[in-house]
């Protein structure tokens, strides 16, 4: 049980630091959060730099152009990038964290060759078409239909919470190919949808923070070639589940590092503006520091276990992390507002939406306990998959059957 770098890890860390020191000063200032074309250009440029330096697809297998790094090296990468103030994954999020890993695991060779290198270079942006207005936490209830017509699927339906849809080239799309009244987890299919296909309409959704990161996506008679199907027809649910473990395992790691630094800034501000003299405020700051330090330790425990497990995938323990981190993150932003006092009534600038602006972060963090599985869903996962508690009887099963233990 130890936390030190091995000599290899230390070398990896030092090389990365040196590279970040050289390359970060060459970057342009970050574009405004709502200038999507500029964000795409900025994020793609960063991805291209990572690619040239051999840091793209860090934890992806080398045979697909990745670096084949260990989970610990991946952790070091996220930690050092955040500490150095490097850009986030940005519009490449879905490609690198969802679609790419799914294609590697499940796609046909020609599909991989077509998309994987382009994602790694930052040439191809992906978005996610999973959630629907009537299928959120109950994702398997999705209703977007795909009907076979020769060598195409014809797709009709609505998708929602589609991040970066305005600038995406492709969408990982879940559709229903089975009967509408069939078993809901079966009959779902995973398709690659080109975003320029006729019949795709976007309606931006503005969040409480004023950001237009999400869109609603309306699909009307969109024709998608059958060759764009990943895996078998009807196997889409299983394929989609492959990526969720990744998202919960590493999707928030860099944010713990960010939160620990933000807390130090809040402490400094409190010392400056006398909030520190209030012992209750001081202890709230300390209690949150304890929470984030413990979460950081929990990340290391999860990563160590992933590194030595056969699959290399973070286990269900990542749900504990997701649950506690997202709630702590909201406390952090509330605490920041309390320490700022009435200054927290105003955004810092006219655009009111840039990374790190405290008022914007406070509103943005509302989504933390909802996105990527709500806190309630995380508690169900912990209760059922880790602790082995019985499932809640489903609405479709008769209660009497559930009482006899016969519900499915």
């Amino acid at each position, binding site marked *: *049980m*130890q*936390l*030190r*770098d*091995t000599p290899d*890890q*230390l070398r990896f*860390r030092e090389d990365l630091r040196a590279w970040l020191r050289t390359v970060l000063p060459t970057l342009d200032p970050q574009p405004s959060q709502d200038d999507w074309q500029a964000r795409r250009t900025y994020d793609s440029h960063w991805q291209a730099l990572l690619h040239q330096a051999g840091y793209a697809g860090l934890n992806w297998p080398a045979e697909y152009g990745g670096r084949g790094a260990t989970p*610990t090296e991946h*952790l070091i990468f996220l*930690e050092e990038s955040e*500490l150095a103030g490097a850009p986030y994954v940005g519009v490449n999020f879905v490609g690198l964290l969802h679609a790419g890993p799914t294609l590697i695991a499940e796609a046909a060779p020609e599909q991989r060759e077509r998309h994987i290198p382009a994602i790694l270079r930052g040439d191809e942006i992906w978005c996610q078409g999973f959630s629907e207005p009537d299928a959120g936490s109950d994702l398997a209830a999705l209703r977007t239909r795909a009907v076979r017509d020769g060598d195409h699927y014809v797709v009709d339906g609505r998708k929602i919470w589609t991040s970066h849809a305005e600038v995406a080239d492709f969408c990982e799309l879940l559709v229903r190919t089975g009967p509408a009244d069939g078993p809901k987890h079966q009959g779902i299919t995973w398709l690659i949808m080109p975003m320029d296909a006729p019949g795709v309409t976007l309606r931006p959704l503005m969040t409480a923070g004023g950001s237009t990161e999400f869109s609603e996506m309306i699909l009307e008679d969109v024709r998608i070639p059958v060759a764009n199907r990943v895996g078998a027809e009807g196997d889409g649910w299983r394929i989609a589940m492959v990526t969720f473990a990744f998202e919960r395992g590493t999707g928030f790691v860099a944010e713990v*590092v960010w939160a620990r630094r933000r*807390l*130090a800034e809040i*402490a400094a501000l409190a010392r400056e503006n006398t909030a520190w003299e209030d*012992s209750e405020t*001081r*202890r709230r*700051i*300390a*209690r949150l*520091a*304890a*929470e984030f*330090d*413990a*979460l*950081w*330790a*929990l990340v*290391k*425990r999860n*990563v*160590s276990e992933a*590194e*030595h497990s056969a699959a290399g995938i973070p286990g269900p*323990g990542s749900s*504990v992390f997701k*649950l*506690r981190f997202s709630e702590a993150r909201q406390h952090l932003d509330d605490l920041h507002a309390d320490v700022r006092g009435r200054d927290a009534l105003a955004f810092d600038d006219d655009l009111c939406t840039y990374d790190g602006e405290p008022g914007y972060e406070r509103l943005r963090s509302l989504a933390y306990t909802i996105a990527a599985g709500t806190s*309630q869903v*995380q*508690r*169900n996962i*912990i*209760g*059922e998959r*880790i*602790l*082995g*508690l*019985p*499932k*809640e*009887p489903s609405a479709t099963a008769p*209660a009497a059957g*559930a*009482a006899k233990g016969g519900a499915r």
Partner: protein
Amino acid sequence: MDFRPTQDQRALAGAVRDVLAKHPAPGTPGREAEKGPDPGIGGVDVALWRDLAELGIFGVRVAEADGGLGLGHPESVHVFEELGRALATGPFTATALAAALLPEYAGGRHRVGLGDLTCGNQQTQILEHLDALDALLVIEIVDGETPGVAGHSQVLRVEPIELRADPVPHPVDPRVPLHRLRQKPLRGEIVGDAGTADALLREGALLTAAYQVGIAAVLTERAVAYAKQRTQFGRAIGSFQAVKHLCADMFARAELARAAVHSAAVLLCDEAAGHDGADLPTAAAAVSTAKLLADEAAVANARSAIQVHGGMGCTWEMGLHFFLKRAWALSLAYGRAADHADLISESL
């Protein structure tokens, strides 16, 4: 980095667990309905103490040449989590601290208590297990200095028999006999300076946190087992989200607190050697983090375990109250939440 417990650490924990299983404490499975007299003088189960001493648990951190196991804090916290799971009762923490300071205690032949006279403005100091003690370490402030200021405390070794103390007639935790100290200043042999005092308090907080993690973890298991077995409205109560989410939160608290305890144990070991430049808290802050989260986890999980057990959870015979009472008491030992929060805030 490999933050997983090693094979040897798990084996040590397993050996301790096996010994503890042979001497179940009241309120733990095997002795649920026990309401008899204390198991021994001063609330110590002497047979259990002897078997654990034979295993070497008091000398975990003592060099092998001095009769210890020659291991470190990561091994100690594994042992103390097991003690907490079994709700083992006695001056385990203080004796282990004394052994790290004075190797003559490594074998566990003597029981050593600890009194911390530096914290709070209490008129009287409460001591645990006094009748069972062969020696008492007392951390006190040297006369004329401000209480609580590091650098002015010292450690005394006192003969328990020379102390004037009154037994507390009705301790809340019936398994931990208490005495109120009537006398100050104390006479004794100086065995450590301010640095020693700080080290003792820090390690005591770490071991106590590990014990609290044991409480938090074992109560999660008991609540989950009960939620699977107990049926209401025709189904296991654990299928209801209201109950399931209580259990999920218990699990999350115990896991997070354990990660904090293990991290603090490693950082305390590494402190002298220095780190590799990674973004890590100081050992002192890490120990305070561990104590803070483990106290919360133990107390909250004891309450939740009682809640999941419903009316039976409140009964004496179910025994959950023993865990809650111990968790309460330990959250007042080796620094309260506010003390540790203050310590952490100094590092920010």
